[in-house]
């Protein structure tokens, strides 16, 4: 079967269902896609749309409950559905390999990395251990991991997330498969690591001539990696075509709505707000008749769209471009987006929060398990943080994991006390007062919205009860009736129906839970809200709605919003000022325009170039950061960023390796911590350019 001319993978009218005791739940319906040799096809959609099920269906690993109920999956012309278990094993890992979302969970924690890699050729090609090891070394070199010998001897937990993902990729490439299935391969990684991994996958795909099925919810990433794209909604493919066609000439209302709900360059919270997709994703057993997207579609026409099954229609003139929309010829696709309500930009008010040279160091015992003894090491989580935040201002704090942004939030909240420096809330020092000693007003003033709404609500308490509990803690209302009234008002504020007061958290979707989290944070009339990645766990279409809600409440209540995020697109969209952190240092701070335009701090530059943007007009300078973020326990001498900085050579005399750069003002309100000379800064070019339309 080595000689095969046709497509690598042909999925035709595939339907997959899961069977529970109650009913059959169709997860994928009438799904077709073709992957040609050397082609990369992106599979895009929100969580629950069935994209991972397709991948597992191809691998025929659907578990006990899942079954292919219709259609065929052909791999190099062979119907995978008819293969025996033994034939299937011969294909898995050798012909089709998979790369998974969570690298840590996908590697066996109790097996050395080397053995996990060597296993693949040993099973499939029966090679000797020595040869397998030699090959493993080659592949580990191919995925650009330093010190391959040592890596092979390591256990997965001894590697960083990025390194683990490279191992998973290496494992997939061990037997040079014809098809690589990537299931959200970079979701768990930082943006700069993501950029490096994506580059690697693209290079290796080219080198080995591997076809790829790239599953992602990130449109920008698909634009960067894929040739063709398939948009899924609620178990169906709604639009397929080449990436160019789908991005620039989309012909399905869902695709259009999806693009309008993500922050692209040019979107602005006041002048050009995002447009969230109204309504909710239908549950698999509650799909509407006819078009699944019908109830949320702006172009819905009763009697037509809800009449019956909708087939895929060919778009004339385009290259294999299909849409599952009956009205695609009636809709004026060029019409500009209906202007949503424009809002006035709010003026920042007086300073409410001031941080002055805040430091937070942790002492870590050298030996965690057997305790005691040994020298303690110091983790410098925050290093001289100084800034002020004004009323009704949004200050974004940006940086990769481990940069100290969460530590900063903890110190501000009072979960930790500062090692040094000051935090002034209305000119009162609070840096040394732990939360249990803070007075109710201070606690109510500074509140937090958490990253993961799924874990932050008490699963056994109704939504209303949880909000009332917060009101009780903040001393709001004199009677239960008053607090109940206030709770209902808060539900109105976060735009949840009042009936939700009686619901349990499990009955809510992710976006709704996050709204409850927001309501709880604002229960005491918070003046400063720390939002720690509030939307990163949510689907794109929901992100827009939750972000807008935060903005609206902020406008009404003049809240100071400290928006912690790694997603620069959303930061650009909603923040007034941006603070970029690296290894506990603030490396750059300024207004959003200042930070997103040159001159940049070299780290900001790399960060910006790493963010995938779902817009074909955008051209980016690729700057790939080598290596990992150094450990905060053992930071490099001098400038924290010097180990990965591409501008380091421009600073004479090895200054970067010796001295921490001073804070410099490039423009009023624009600070940079860098040794680069003014001429160098002047020479910097924008990383992101939007081509003229």
């Amino acid at each position, binding site marked *: 079967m080595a000689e095969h001319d046709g497509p690598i993978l042909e999925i035709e009218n595939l339907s997959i269902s899961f069977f529970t005791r109650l009913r059959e739940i169709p997860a994928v319906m009438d799904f077709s896609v073709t992957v040609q040799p050397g082609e990369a096809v992106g599979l895009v959609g929100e969580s629950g749309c069935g994209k991972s099920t397709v991948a597992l269906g191809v*691998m025929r*690993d659907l578990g*006990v409950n899942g079954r292919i109920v219709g259609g065929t999956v052909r791999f190099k012309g062979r119907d995978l559905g008819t293969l025996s278990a033994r034939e299937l*094993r*011969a*294909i*898995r*890992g*050798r012909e089709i*390999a*998979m790369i*998974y979302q*969570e690298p840590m*969970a*996908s*590697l*066996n*924690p*109790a*097996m050395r990395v080397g053995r996990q890699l060597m*296993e*693949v050729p040993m*099973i*499939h090609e029966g090679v000797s251990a020595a040869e397998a090891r030699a090959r493993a070394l080659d592949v580990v070199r191919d995925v650009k991991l330093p010190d391959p010998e040592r890596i092979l001897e390591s*256990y997965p*937990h001894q590697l960083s997330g990025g390194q683990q993902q490279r191992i*998973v990729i290496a*494992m997939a490439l061990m037997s040079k498969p014809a098809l690589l299935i990537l299931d959200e391969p970079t979701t768990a990684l930082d943006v700069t690591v993501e950029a490096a991994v994506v580059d690697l996958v693209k290079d290796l795909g080219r080198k080995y001539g591997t076809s790829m099925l790239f599953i992602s919810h990130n449109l920008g990433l698909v634009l960067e990696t894929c040739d063709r794209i398939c948009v899924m909604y609620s178990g169906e493919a709604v639009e397929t075509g080449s990436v160019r066609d789908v991005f620039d000439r989309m012909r399905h209302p869902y695709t259009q709505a999806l693009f309008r709900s993500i922050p692209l360059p040019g979107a602005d919270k006041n002048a050009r707000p995002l447009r969230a997709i109204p309504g909710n994703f239908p549950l698999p057993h509650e799909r509407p008749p006819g078009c699944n997207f019908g109830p949320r579609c702006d172009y819905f026409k009763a009697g037509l769209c809800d009449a019956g099954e909708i087939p895929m229609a060919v778009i004339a003139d385009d290259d294999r471009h299909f849409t599952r929309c009956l009205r695609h010829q009636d809709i004026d696709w060029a019409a500009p987006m209906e202007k949503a309500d424009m809002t006035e930009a709010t003026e920042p008010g007086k300073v409410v929060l001031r941080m002055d040279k805040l430091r937070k160091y942790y002492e870590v015992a050298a*030996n965690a*398990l*057997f305790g*005691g*003894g*040994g020298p303690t090491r110091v983790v410098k989580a925050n290093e001289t943080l100084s800034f002020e935040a004004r009323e009704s201002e949004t200050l974004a704090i940006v940086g990769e994991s481990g940069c100290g942004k969460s530590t900063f939030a903890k110190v501000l909240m009072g979960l930790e006390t500062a090692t040094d420096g000051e935090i002034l809330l209305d000119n009162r020092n609070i840096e040394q007062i732990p939360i249990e000693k803070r007075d109710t007003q201070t606690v109510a003033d500074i509140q937090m919205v958490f990253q993961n709404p799924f874990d932050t609500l008490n699963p056994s308490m109704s939504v209303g009860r949880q909000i009332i509990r917060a009101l009780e803690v903040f001393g709001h209302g004199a009677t239960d009736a008053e607090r109940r009234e206030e709770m209902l008002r808060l539900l109105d504020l976060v735009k949840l129906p009042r009936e939700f007061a009686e619901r349990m958290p499990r009955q809510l979707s992710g976006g709704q839970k996050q709204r409850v989290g927001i309501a709880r944070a604002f229960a005491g009339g918070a003046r400063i809200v720390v939002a720690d990645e509030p939307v990163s766990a949510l689907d794109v279409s929901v992100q827009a709605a939750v972000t807008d809600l935060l903005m609206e409440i902020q406008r009404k209540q003049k809240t100071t919003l400290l928006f912690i995020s790694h997603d620069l697109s959303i930061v650009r969209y909603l923040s007034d000022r941006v603070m970029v952190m690296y290894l506990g240092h603030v490396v750059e701070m300024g207004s959003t325009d200042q930070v997103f335009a040159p001159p940049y701090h070299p780290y900001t530059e790399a960060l910006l170039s790493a963010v995938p943007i779902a817009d074909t007009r955008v051209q980016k300078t690729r700057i790939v950061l080598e290596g990992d973020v150094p450990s905060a326990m053992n930071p490099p001498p001098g400038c924290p960023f010097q180990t990965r900085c591409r501008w380091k050579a421009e600073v004479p005399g090895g200054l970067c390796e010796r001295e921490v750069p001073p804070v410099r003002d490039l423009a009023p309100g624009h600070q940079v911590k860098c040794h680069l000379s003014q001429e160098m800064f002047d020479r910097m070019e924008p990383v992101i350019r939007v081509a003229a339309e």
Partner: protein
Amino acid sequence: MTLAKFILRRVGVMLLTALCLTFIVFFLTNLYPNLEKLAKTQGNFRMTDEEVASYLGRNGYLQPLPVKYGQWMGVLPGWTQEAEDGTIRGRCFAPDQPPGDAPRFCGILQGHWGHSTVFREDVGAIIAEKLALTGRLMLWVMLLMVPSALILGVMAGMREGSRTDRTLSTFAITTTATPEYVSGVLFIAVFASTAVGLKWFKGTATSAMENPTFENFFLPVLTIALYGMGYIARMTRASMAEVMTAQYIRTARLKGVSFPNIVVKHALRNALIAPFTVIMLQFPWLLNGVVIVETLFNYKGFGWTLVQAAGNNDIELLLAVSVVSVVVVLATQLISDIGYVYLNPRISMT
């Protein structure tokens, strides 16, 4: 340095625990009613209160509690008393020893575990002999119980919800739900008596103390092993079932690894991490089961000795038994912690 230091700390904890526990046992066994009982079993049951007091006084039992404890420990000099007839008696005096040769101190610190009033023998010698007997029993129990429990658990857990799983789980639950005094009696009735007629094994293990054979030793071993086996098997099953749903098992499956290899190479080590602690916890807990089974099968080991000592308020024997128990419990915990580190690469000592 870390491992040595860690072990040192654990030994320290062990000593402290032994000290506390022995003091409690010492206190309870030296309550006057208990002493009175001791006097009456040693002398005769028709002793008057005065006779009891004088017996206890003569044998040093009426000294203040801390003093007696100190003497047992060997930090205070042992008591001596001159009787009316001029002979000198003392705690440290051997029966046929001239008074002058007796050491001043005789306690744990000097290596003297005291004298058993029941067996009229040196406690150290009794403990050594009985521990050897029980050790042999436990060894066979472990040899039977651990491998079969692990096999049972792994077989049941590798395909959760399958017919094999349900059959093996039912078996495991049944054995765990049957206490030793039920299963022991049942086994004796079925396999060793005329009630059923299958006289395959012997109903008593007394002869096994001298000469253990399959015939006289299997039933007590089986009785203890079955009870513990179900428990370990359940733990292993749960752990195995969880591991089998882990993503790295899916990775292995989609790499093309065959099912037997997935179980043996990928799942087993991970699945054994949790039950390992439980298995080690079984050791001290076996001491418990040993009490019942040894009494039931009349196997005069450690458990049987414990019963005898407790029944007769044999103070120094009971104390020695307590010390041994503490050492066994904490030593197995130590081994379990160290073994855990080797089994689980994510925990390291450095």
